[in-house]
C-alpha cells in the first residue's frame, strides 16, 4: 500500500501530464485546421493534372513510343518504395500504420523474388524501418526544420526519384502515406506513381475530345510526367500533414481523458487511505483511553 505522500505525488504528476496532453491536443487542433485546408486546396491541382494526362494518353496512338514514365520500361524487377511519415511522434498509430502497410508490401515484394529499394521521408518512419529493412534504404530525407511543406520540397523528392529512374535504378515506384479522411479516420495507402497508374474504368470512359497539341503529345508528356510525380508526392505530403495533426489530436484527446480517469481513481485511493489512517488513530486513542 503506497503511503499518502506517494499518492499525492502521483496525482500531481498525472495532473501535470494531463496538462501537457491537453495543450498538445489544442495545438494539434489549431494546426489541423490549417493542414486540412492545405490538403483540400491541393486536391484540385492533382486531380486536374491527372485529367489532362488521361486525355493525353487517350489520344496517344497505340504502340507509339510513349514516354517510359507513363507506360513503364517493360520490366518488373526492382521496386522503389517511398515511405512518407512524420518527423514527430506522439500521434497515435499514425507512423506505425504507414510502416506496417509498407512492411507488408516489402515482404510481398521480397517473397516474389524482386529487388527492393526504399526511400524514407521523415525520421520516424526511418527509425521504424531501418531495424528490419535497413539494408534496402537507399536514401533518407527529413524536413524537420521546415514549418510547412510546399511544392519545393516535394519537387526535391520527385527529382531524386526521376533521377534514379533515368539511371534505370528501379522499374516501379510506390509511395506510402496516410490519406486524410476525417479527424478520426486516416487510411494508410500505397500508390503507384511510376509508371503512372491509370484507373481502368477511367480509360474506358470514352469521351475523347480531339485536342490540338502544341508542340506534340510526346513533348507535352515529357514535360508533364515528371511534374506529375512531384505533384503526387506533394499530395501525399499534404494528406500526411493533415492526417498527422488529426491523429495527434485524437491520441492526445484520449490521453487527456485517460489521465482524468487516473486522477479520479488515485484521488479516491488517496481519500480512502487518509480516512483509514484517521480511523486507525481514533481507534488507538479510544482503546488507549479505555485501558486506563
Amino acid at each position, binding site marked *: 500500500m503506497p503511503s499518502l505522500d506517494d499518492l499525492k505525488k502521483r496525482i500531481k504528476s498525472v495532473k501535470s501530464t494531463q496538462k501537457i496532453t491537453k495543450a498538445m491536443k489544442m495545438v494539434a487542433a489549431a494546426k489541423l485546421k490549417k493542414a486540412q485546408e492545405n490538403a483540400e486546396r491541393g486536391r484540385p491541382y*492533382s486531380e*486536374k493534372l491527372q485529367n489532362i494526362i488521361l486525355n493525353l494518353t487517350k489520344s496517344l496512338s497505340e504502340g507509339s513510343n510513349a514516354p517510359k514514365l507513363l507506360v513503364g520500361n517493360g520490366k518488373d524487377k526492382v521496386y522503389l518504395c517511398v515511405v512518407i511519415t512524420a518527423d514527430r511522434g506522439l500521434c497515435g498509430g499514425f507512423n506505425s500504420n504507414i510502416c506496417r502497410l509498407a512492411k507488408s508490401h516489402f515482404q510481398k515484394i521480397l517473397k516474389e523474388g524482386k529487388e527492393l529499394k526504399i526511400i524514407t521521408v521523415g525520421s520516424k518512419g526511418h527509425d521504424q524501418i531501418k531495424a528490419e529493412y535497413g539494408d534496402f534504404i537507399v536514401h533518407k530525407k527529413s524536413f524537420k526544420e521546415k514549418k510547412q511543406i510546399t511544392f519545393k520540397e516535394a519537387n526535391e523528392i520527385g527529382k531524386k526519384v526521376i533521377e534514379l529512374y533515368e539511371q534505370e535504378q528501379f522499374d516501379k515506384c510506390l509511395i506510402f502515406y496516410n490519406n486524410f479522411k476525417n479527424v478520426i479516420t486516416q487510411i494508410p495507402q500505397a500508390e503507384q506513381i511510376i509508371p503512372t497508374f491509370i484507373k481502368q474504368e477511367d480509360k474506358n470512359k470514352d469521351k475523347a475530345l480531339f485536342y490540338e497539341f*502544341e508542340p506534340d503529345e510526346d513533348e507535352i508528356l515529357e514535360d508533364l510526367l515528371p511534374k506529375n510525380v512531384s505533384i503526387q508526392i506533394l499530395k501525399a505530403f499534404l494528406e500526411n500533414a493533415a492526417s498527422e495533426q488529426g491523429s495527434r489530436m485524437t491520441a492526445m484527446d484520449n490521453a487527456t481523458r485517460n489521465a482524468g480517469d487516473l486522477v479520479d481513481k488515485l484521488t479516491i485511493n488517496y481519500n480512502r487511505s487518509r480516512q483509514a489512517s484517521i480511523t486507525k488513530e481514533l481507534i488507538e486513542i479510544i482503546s488507549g483511553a479505555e485501558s486506563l
Partner: protein
Amino acid sequence: MSQEFKIEIISPDRSIFSGNTDEAILPCFEGQVTILKDHIPLITYLRPGIIEIGKNEKFFTEDGTVEFSDNNLLILATTIQSLKLINAKHKNNMIQEAEKELSTSQISDKQKYILNYKIETLKQIN
C-alpha cells in the same frame, strides 16, 4: 452574345485566379498564344513569361500546363505570381538566381532556353 469564357489558374497550394474573360494571352513553349472564345480544344505547356487575362490581370509564371476545352481554360502552374505582388527587390533576386544557374555549365539546351526567357521576361517587368 457574350464573348467571354471561363478561366481558372491553379497552383499546387491554392487557386490563384478564377473568373471570366474575353481574351487570354499565354506564353506557350513555342510562342505566344491568344485564346478567344470557341478556340478548339488545346493542350500545351508554358515557358516563363507573362500571362495576360483581359486588360487588367497579369501574372508572371515560370512554367505551367494549359488545357482548353468547352470554353474552359485551365492553367496549372507551379510557380506563379500576380505582377502586382512582385517588387523590384524580389525581381532582382530572381534575375540573379537565374543568371547564376545559367552560368553553371551542366545544363541542357532546353534549360538554357527556359532560363533565358525567364531573365528576359523579368527584365521587362517594371
